[in-house]
């Protein structure tokens, strides 16, 4: 059964934009969605994954290996040291049974009680006990490669696990060294975390490592609520028919993402805007340099998505809140919320 289509989702504009930008540039560093329950965060991510073209990989591969390297090896081109191929794919190449298939973009849910073993991968119990073999069993990170990793209630996850996840998300590689094994495999995914601030906060060191953050609210406008429930109801009654009627807008968004991905390298930022970005971050007292770097990167992705080759001031104005909101040092006893502080600072610096 299909997932509810992305273009038919009502509202949640901030979250939608953050996810789209991450789809254009997965290296942005992930999205943190803080706010109320039941606001359709999981559905939104699944719907983006459904929108994107399927990935090409090798039949039976647990690591979502890219087929190019396999094909080169098979056609006698020797081994490409830079590309990764898992053991089972290598085996298939030598057996001559490589089969290329299409797989939908993976969206992996990280369950709340997940152990390190399940996430990173561990010694294959079955192989060890039954055959006495030392083999690595890939974890959730391998399955999320080239897709999305969604963590619900990220503020309840154990700190050391979040640490590892953020490390992998930043480097794009999972390095596992335990139980006598040393394994390294690619793990490039968009990390999306969600949580309810009423249940506890993330440490600032961890917050800072997420790329963008958005606030997600339950819609209060009656008309919006009616439309949301109405569309969901229509979808439930006839999923295929509903999907068909939204085919065109889905296609437009997909094309924009793909075009954006291609154009990303060519987008430039004018010097004056670079200066203003820096001034903004200084005015806000954001810790570290990640704020500026993320803002620049996200602005580029936004321009690419729109089909432009230059970043404009409006891009900055629109994206600054999500790039900086979670990096501001919290002043105890200061009730001003982060979004307001950013708006004030932007006016001071002349961005908005």
């Amino acid at each position, binding site marked *: *059964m299909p997932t509810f289509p992305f273009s038919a989702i009502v509202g949640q504009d901030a979250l939608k934009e953050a996810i789209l930008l991450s789809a254009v540039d997965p290296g942005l560093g992930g999205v943190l969605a803080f706010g109320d*329950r*039941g*606001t*359709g965060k*999981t559905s939104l991510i699944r719907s983006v994954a459904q929108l994107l073209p399927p990935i090409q990989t090798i039949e039976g591969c647990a690591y979502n290996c890219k087929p190019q390297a396999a094909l080169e090896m098979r056609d006698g081109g020797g081994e490409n040291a830079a590309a990764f191929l898992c053991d089972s794919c290598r085996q298939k190449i030598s057996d001559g049974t490589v089969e290329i298939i299409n797989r939908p973009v993976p969206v992996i*849910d990280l*369950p*709340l*009680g997940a*152990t390190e073993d399940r996430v990173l991968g561990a*010694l294959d*119990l*079955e192989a*060890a*006990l*039954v*055959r*006495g073999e030392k083999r690595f069993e890939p974890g959730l990170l391998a399955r999320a490669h080239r897709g999305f990793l969604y963590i*619900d*209630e990220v503020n*309840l996850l*154990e*700190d050391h696990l979040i640490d590892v996840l953020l490390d992998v998300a930043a480097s794009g590689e999972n390095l596992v060294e335990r*139980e*006598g094994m040393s394994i390294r495999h690619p793990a490039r995914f968009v990390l999306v975390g969600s949580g309810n*601030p*009423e*249940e*506890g*906060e993330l*440490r*600032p*060191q961890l917050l800072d490592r997420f790329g963008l953050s958005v606030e997600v*609210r*339950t*819609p*209060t*406008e*009656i*008309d919006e*609520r*009616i439309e*949301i*429930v*109405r569309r*969901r*109801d229509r979808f*439930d*009654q006839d999923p295929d028919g509903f999907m068909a009627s939204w085919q065109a807008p889905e296609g437009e968004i997909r094309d924009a993402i793909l075009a954006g991905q291609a154009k990303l390298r060519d987008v430039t930022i004018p010097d004056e805007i670079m200066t203003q970005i820096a001034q903004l971050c200084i005015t806000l007292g954001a810790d570290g340099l990640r704020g500026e770097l993320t803002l620049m990167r996200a602005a580029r992705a936004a321009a690419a998505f729109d089909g432009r080759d230059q970043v404009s001031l409006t891009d900055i104005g629109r994206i600054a809140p999500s790039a900086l909101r979670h990096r501001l040092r*919290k002043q*105890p*006893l200061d*009730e001003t919320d982060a979004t307001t502080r950013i708006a004030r600072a932007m006016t001071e610096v002349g961005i908005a």
Partner: protein
Amino acid sequence: MSQGAAYPAASMPAAEPELSSFPIENAIERWAHALEAARLLARNPDLGGVILRARPGPVRDAWIKAYRERLPARLPFITLPAHTDTTRLLGGLDFAATLAAGNPVTTTGLLDSAAGGVLICSMAERMTPARAAILAARLDDTNNTFVTVLIDEGEADDPAPPECLTDRLAFPIDLEGIPAAFATDPGDNETPEDLAMSMPAPDFPDDLEDALAVSLARLGVSSLRLHLLCLRCARTIAARDARSAISEDDIITALRLVLAGRTDPLPEPPPPEPDDPPPPDQNQSETEKDDASHSSPDEALEDRIVEAVQSGLIDLRGDPGSTPRRMRQANVTDGKSGLAVPSWQTGRRIGTRAKPPEGGKRIDILATLTAAAPWQRLRREGTGEEKRLHILPSDLRIKQFEARQKTLIIFVVDISGSAAIQRLGEAKGAVEYLLTDCYSRRDEVALIGFRGREAEILLPPTRSLVRMRQTLAGVPGGGPTPLADAISKAAMLGAREQRRGKTVTIVFLTDGKGNMTLEGTADRKQAQNDAELMARGLKSLEVQSFLFDNAKRPTGQAQTIAGAMGAFYRHLPYARGAPVANLIGKAVAGQRV
């Protein structure tokens, strides 16, 4: 309510002298409501399930039987015990069986077995957030989902079942206190197969769509999932009566069924005058503002619906004297600082033990294989099997970890008298510092305030700055000083959280001059005695306590109380947030102060 073990089977319950007509009518009503829920759920599994407030007994069994008989015969009907481990839940390698057979033996997870059928979860009020999250995720997976019967066996001060689950289940049912003789099932004329037959879905007229949305807003329901469930329920009712369109009555019945126990059966405040200009601010979630800004031509329709629902809402309380337990968010706990405690599941790895791996203990494969390795040749010769790895139970090794225990700091603040506002401000300041400091970020904080007759838990244990600010905004102060009650309540809260495995610290901000006794009378001498008595009680709990004396000139009263409770005493006339927080933070971390 009848005491004793035996429930009368066929006869009327023995007459109880004080039983008024309300409980009997209410009991009959609740049972009828429960049966109706069973019928609708059997007809349409997309309604999610029920939240069944019922302790074990014949009435609960009767309901489950009534529901099951309306389902097709071979549907999976799985019970999930309260504390199953993840392997049993999600499936995986059955370790013991694999060893025995020499081949991999996997178990199918309970959740997979339940797919397409019904899952019964007992003791849902004790479900951990992790478990609830796994279930909720599975419920959203439309290809593998199941109907959930969440059984809530809690007492009045136990938390309610997790909201992430109750939000996905249509019908709250309360069977508490219903005599067994009332729990009869007249049966339906339709067979389960008839019930499951799908018909073309009834239409939902536009004006009713709007009316449903507005009515829900006026009834204070903001969850979109519940909105969708009400819609589905109304549709199921119309389909059952073979009508082609949903009617106003269907909506009213659906709302009464779905919102029982989730909304207050109190009359709502009157909507604002039509000539008040509605504020343009989008962030208001008050229902009055929505009402004014939404131009509905059918206000009469909505009024009828809301009134009918509120007057027809079933009272979900067995005993009218007890406080109803509303569906509220269960207490969420997790965290990392505090005493290091040996654990079998989480935390930093500190070693290996030779023990059998039951009950969620994690196997240390390497150590196990290392232990078994030297014996392989001998064991192989014994049985003659070549390939298999021979592992005996004595070789098994499990991992041991060191987990950090959670800490809770309870602030007990004197908000009586004229300095109330200032003291509350100081306490708020200290709490804010504790919650924002990133090193002690994992402490939970609670606040008890005392003034007037008795002390009150103003802020239940929380780690969240947002929640603290919301809860403590606008707390009134002034009046007499019930110190004894405050100490007593702090001790009770502390003991309860200690039983849950947390390290508790209690901090008192007071001048020690209690003047209200435990009974609520204004006898100064008695009040002091009561306070000292409670203080000694607190000492026996062995929690770390602090007493910060904020009298301008200490009279020794506070010091006496501190001595009685074994608390660290300091005179701090101006208890600014940061220094207090620092002191406490250091003490909790085990450093000397």
